[in-house]
């Protein structure tokens, strides 16, 4: 007996424990829903946030050189393992930056004894030049060879001479070359030189490949630069060999060097900032932009803009570095640049993002030499004897609040604009990632969809909930609701391949439908009231849609068949041409009208279903009371029912908008997906969601583009989150209100 009770107790205990376990299990299962939503939110944010992370600059390695050098230029290999310095004695020396032999001299070679002037190409060509006092130059290139002995990467420095180790004659008169600039690509080179007696020489080098041996032979041609200014402060050849910039104090002369027979001055400009003087100028990668620094710390950006059919160098925007800027250094592939100033501050800027990313004091004296690493993840700074490698964390400089949401003046464009153009074939392309045009596209698509869906869905819901007989309602409501189950890919396919050509061919008919359908309903209504009372009363109430069905089908068919005569009569037989030529409205085959109809079709059931529920559940006592007081059914509907159900209808519209905003396939298939900003109903758009679907599979993981696409998804998420939450809260309150009535 005793044991029996204890057995039962033990069994009970087991049951209690089991009960508890189930309770906790199920509770955690329920919480999982919330966790999932938070996970989505958190993960999207986790991917997006790095684009807004601040830039950081930290000392990574440091060593002291034995002698203090006067440096012309310095640089790094791709792995930041080896640095090189080109000093004013004309030597090129490589130093190790590896942990194991930090600061060790790896290779040293005297290129030219006591050079007069020095020049270098754009960073990604990484070729350098010395000139001497006899009108000669030597061109050399620090190189890095990578090999894998014992499966470990080893980088060894090398010096190459593209034109051999002999000197190249520039000036036939043998005068010293004081100022020089040059640029070199695989098959083309250009050297601009100013001699001591102030003559401007321009040498063009062209490579031809010997068909038989495959050797490359360089041929040169010398041209004298016309109308040279008295004083030449600085000279730059653009890497696309189109322009030669000569700065004479605060003036800039732009020579057009694209046609060798006709080298001429294109324009002369004052480029200094007001009340200041120019200290340096530098080209950004991509050859389009010229950065000009001033004594007052202002750095201004200039590029060519097409205006009145003429390309003019135009001031675009300026940046402020606070102190007298001594040097500008451009990054290898992106539109970033850094400046050093007289106070020892280093600042990094990005032109597209229009921002100063960081300013940091790195030295007490103003005589710094700085170089970007090729991957822009480190900076090499030489300050007297001290050589420092800074770790630079600057992953996404081009994405800022202003570049995402404000007008940006991109290189080569006539004015600031909102643009989305994320990828291109070449490396130094300026990515245009403004979310404005695609957000606009989303809103435009949703707007036209709602314009089409709202009247039909709400009017339909009102009739179904309030006037329709219950027996028909039980068929009509599920029929409309089943539209919601229709895959949007099918709607998109029909919209793109069936509706779009149909509307293009029958546009007058479609426009006629807009007038003829409501009109025919009114006429039917009128004729119905004129019918003898006996017939009218024989038909039960709430059958209007059934009566209208054949009328609408007939009118629809009639309107469509009138399309062609109408087109001949009004629009010279081709509506499309008429729209474009006479009215000046652009017409795309896959346009907003198509999206509006197709997506409207997809959101009608959402709005209809929720609105119908809201109207149907208005307490009967309210309507009965109104009717009993003598109001007509219509008055009751407008003054009592709709008013009471309006929060429900509002919530239905919100839900519908939420769906329209996020819909992908219909927009993807029914528009041309061009990111234009125009409310024209006959043109397409590109929406956030379609943009993600198109570009996400091709974007590189972790790149700025990838993160911006995540940001687009995040924007969509937040947008629909707000819409749905508001709609749900309104609905819950309405439900409480009804239950209290």
């Amino acid at each position: 007996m005793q044991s029996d009770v204890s057995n039962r107790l033990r069994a009970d205990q087991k049951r209690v424990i089991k009960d508890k376990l189930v309770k906790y299990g199920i509770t955690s299962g329920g919480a999982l829903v919330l966790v999932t939503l938070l996970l989505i939110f958190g993960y999207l944010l986790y991917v997006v946030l790095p684009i807004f992370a601040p830039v950081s600059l930290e000392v990574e390695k440091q060593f002291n050189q034995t002698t203090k050098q006067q440096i012309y230029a310095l640089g790094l290999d791709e792995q930041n393992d080896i640095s090189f310095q080109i000093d004013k004695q004309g030597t090129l020396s490589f130093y190790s930056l590896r942990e194991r032999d930090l600061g060790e001299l790896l290779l040293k070679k005297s290129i030219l004894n006591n050079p007069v002037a020095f020049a270098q190409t754009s960073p990604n060509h990484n070729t350098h030049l010395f000139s001497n006092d006899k009108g000669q130059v030597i061109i050399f290139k620090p190189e890095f060879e990578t090999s894998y002995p014992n499966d470990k990467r080893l980088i060894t420095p090398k010096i190459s001479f593209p034109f051999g180790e002999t000197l190249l004659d520039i000036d036939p008169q043998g005068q010293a070359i004081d100022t020089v600039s040059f640029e070199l690509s695989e098959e083309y080179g250009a050297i601009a030189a100013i001699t001591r007696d102030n003559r401007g020489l321009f040498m063009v080098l062209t490579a031809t490949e010997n068909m038989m041996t495959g050797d490359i032979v360089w041929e040169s041609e010398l041209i004298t630069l016309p109308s040279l200014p008295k004083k030449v402060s600085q000279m730059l050849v653009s890497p696309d060999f189109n322009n030669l910039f000569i700065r004479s104090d605060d003036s800039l002369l732009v020579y057009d060097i694209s046609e060798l027979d006709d080298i001429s001055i294109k324009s002369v400009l004052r480029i200094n900032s007001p009340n200041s003087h120019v200290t340096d100028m530098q080209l950004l990668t991509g050859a389009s932009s010229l950065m000009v620094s001033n004594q007052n710390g202002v750095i201004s950006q200039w590029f060519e803009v097409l205006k009145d059919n003429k390309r003019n160098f135009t001031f675009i925007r300026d940046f402020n570095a606070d102190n007298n800027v001594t040097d500008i250094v451009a990054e290898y592939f992106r539109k970033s640049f850094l400046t050093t100033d007289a106070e020892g501050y280093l600042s990094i800027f990005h032109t597209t993002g229009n921002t100063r990313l960081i300013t940091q004091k790195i030295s007490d004296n103003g005589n710094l030499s700085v170089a970007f690493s090729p991957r822009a993840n480190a900076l090499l700074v030489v300050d007297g004897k001290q050589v420092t490698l800074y770790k630079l964390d600057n992953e996404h400089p081009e994405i800022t609040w202003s570049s995402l949401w404000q007008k940006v003046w991109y290189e080569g464009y006539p004015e600031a604009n909102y643009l989305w153009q994320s990828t291109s074939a070449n490396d130094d392309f300026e990515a245009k990632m403004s979310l404005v045009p695609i957000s606009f596209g989303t809103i435009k698509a949703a707007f036209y969809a709602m314009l089409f869906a709202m009247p039909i869905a709400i009017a339909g819901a009102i009739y179904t909930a309030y006037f329709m007989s219950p027996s028909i309602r039980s068929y009509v409501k599920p029929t409309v609701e089943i539209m919601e189950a229709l895959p949007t890919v099918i709607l998109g396919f029909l919209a793109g391949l069936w509706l779009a050509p149909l509307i293009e061919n029958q546009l007058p008919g479609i426009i006629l439908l807009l007038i003829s359908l409501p009109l025919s309903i009114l006429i039917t209504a009128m004729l119905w009231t004129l019918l003898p009372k006996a017939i009218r009363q024989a038909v039960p109430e709430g059958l209007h849609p059934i009566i209208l069905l054949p009328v609408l089908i007939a009118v629809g068919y009639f309107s469509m068949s009138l399309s062609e005569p109408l087109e001949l009569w009004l629009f010279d037989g081709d509506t499309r041409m008429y729209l474009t030529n006479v009215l000046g409205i652009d017409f795309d085959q896959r346009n907003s009208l198509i999206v509006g109809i197709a997506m409207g079709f997809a959101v009608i059931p959402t709005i209809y279903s929720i609105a119908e529920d809201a109207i149907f559940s208005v307490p009967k006592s309210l309507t009965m009371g109104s009717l009993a007081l003598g109001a007509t059914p219509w008055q009751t509907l407008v003054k009592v029912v709709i008013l009471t159900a309006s929060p429900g209808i509002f919530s239905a519209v919100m839900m519908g908008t939420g769906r329209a905003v996020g819909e992908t396939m219909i927009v993807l298939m029914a528009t041309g997906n061009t990111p234009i900003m125009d409310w024209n109903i006959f043109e397409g758009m590109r929406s956030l969601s379609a943009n993600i679907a198109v570009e996400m599979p091709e974007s590189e993981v972790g790149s700025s583009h990838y993160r911006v696409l995540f940001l687009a998804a995040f924007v969509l998420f937040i947008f629909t989150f707000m819409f749905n939450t508001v709609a749900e809260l309104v609905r819950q309150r309405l439900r409480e209100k009804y239950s209290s009535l």
Partner: protein
Amino acid sequence: MNKWFKSGTPWIWMTGGAVSISLIMVVGLFLLIGWRGLSFFWPATVYEFDMVDKQGNHMNVIGEIYDSETVPKQQLIEAGISGLENKGDTLERFLIKVGNREYVDLDFQWILETTIKGKKIPDDIVVLERTKNGNFYGYIKEILENGKTLTLSQDELEIQFKTRLSMTQALKDKETDLLKGEIGRINFDLEKIRLAKRKVNLDGELSAQKIAQFAEQSQRLRDEYLVLEKQLFEYRTQAQRDSVVITDMTGRDVTMPIASVLDFYLPNKMTFIEKVLHWFHQTGKFVSDDPREANTEGGVFPAIFGTVFMVMLMAVIVTPFGVIAAIYLHEYAPKNTFTKFIRIAVINLAGVPSIVYGVFGLGFFVYIVGGSIDQLLYPEALPSPTFGSPGVLWSALTLAILTLPVVIVSTEEGLSRIPISLREGSLALGATKSETLWRIIVPMASPAIMTGLILAVARAAGEVAPLMLVGVVKMAPTLPVDGNFPYLHLERKFMHLGFHIYDVGFQSPNVEAARPLVYATSFLLVTVIIGLNLTAIAIRNNLREKYRALEH
């Protein structure tokens, strides 16, 4: 009049009109898809047109009338067509599917009614379905065996063609079986050996003995392959034996090996019954064949299989979570802010755009979870990803989150319909809450769970946007299920009906030729989804009736 407007009658009619328009649109859409999708398999009459061009040359065109439209005369005159002066205001223009893609510039040609001088329906026009270049229209001229003409009468030709075609088909079937079966297994095993070797190497245990062992294993497989390859080539030469000579519309004789022909029929000779049978035959082929020619011809079997497999996988994942969440919300959740948050989360999960789930699935499941799995379990295959690239498992997981709210809402509705008295009765008899749940509530709610599941499946089957990011491809070389261990390959990419529609309709080079196929695929997808929805509605209604009876 004013009074009439004031009474509201016209507005009532207007709202009624909105209902009618909605109904017309829904029903019209279904009819459109149904008509276009089903008529594709009907053997269309093939006409032989006698046409005259501007210079007065006669020309024969054989083809199906694919579409027709009326064009205003003005437009044609502007386009530079002369000789229309005495015609009416509008003219008819036909789109003819002429096939024979490798011999004509355009396999779809518009011809104007004025250029047609005569129209015949010859009985012995034959339509060939081919492995490449679409349909071929013409007359059978002769049959060649090993390049020698067989002397046959016209009737015999047809019969011989049929028997030889089925013989060749049988050989080709054997060839495919061999390729996909034995040879596929050998390739799979070879790859496994390569990976095993790499794994041993990574672990630092690669000894000379192991290397020899692996080499011996691969050698054995390669020897096996050589035998099979010989067999394969034999089948191929046998299949190449017969050819058929067809006279096309220009009178040219085209010789093609019977191995390149899939099927042939003489549509103009068919009786109605034969046409119906042919229709069923074609429909059957559509759902059971593999696609051909960049998906623009052939069947959709891999897409059906991929859709069904992915959806089933998703159902397995979503059901337990959905049901547990619904039970929590209805049976356990206290009335507090936390519960309110969960409810808002459910609504939002239902409302978040599907593409956002795709983005999340790609970033989180594929790159983070999949990438980690690869690091831990498949280091030997790196850098080529195993689970770290889009695949069917990630698609199923992504869609499981997407459809979670559907299951929750439906299950909760079912739970709320179970009378409270049943719960109280069970508790009063001494059962714990979990026992009540397990024995009484869940069994009673099971039809509601089923409804939710069906609705979730219907939703998932039609969703395309997220799948484009997490696993769907236009052409998957292998199905996610095959005869190689472990039989289920969850990391593989798959084909999907919805994506098939998008891809064929919008990305294929010959949209005109592919369009009927897209309609057919759409019809298939719509039928499945609407069928599932109707089933769910039926179950739900049935359930409501049952509980209404219980309450009284």
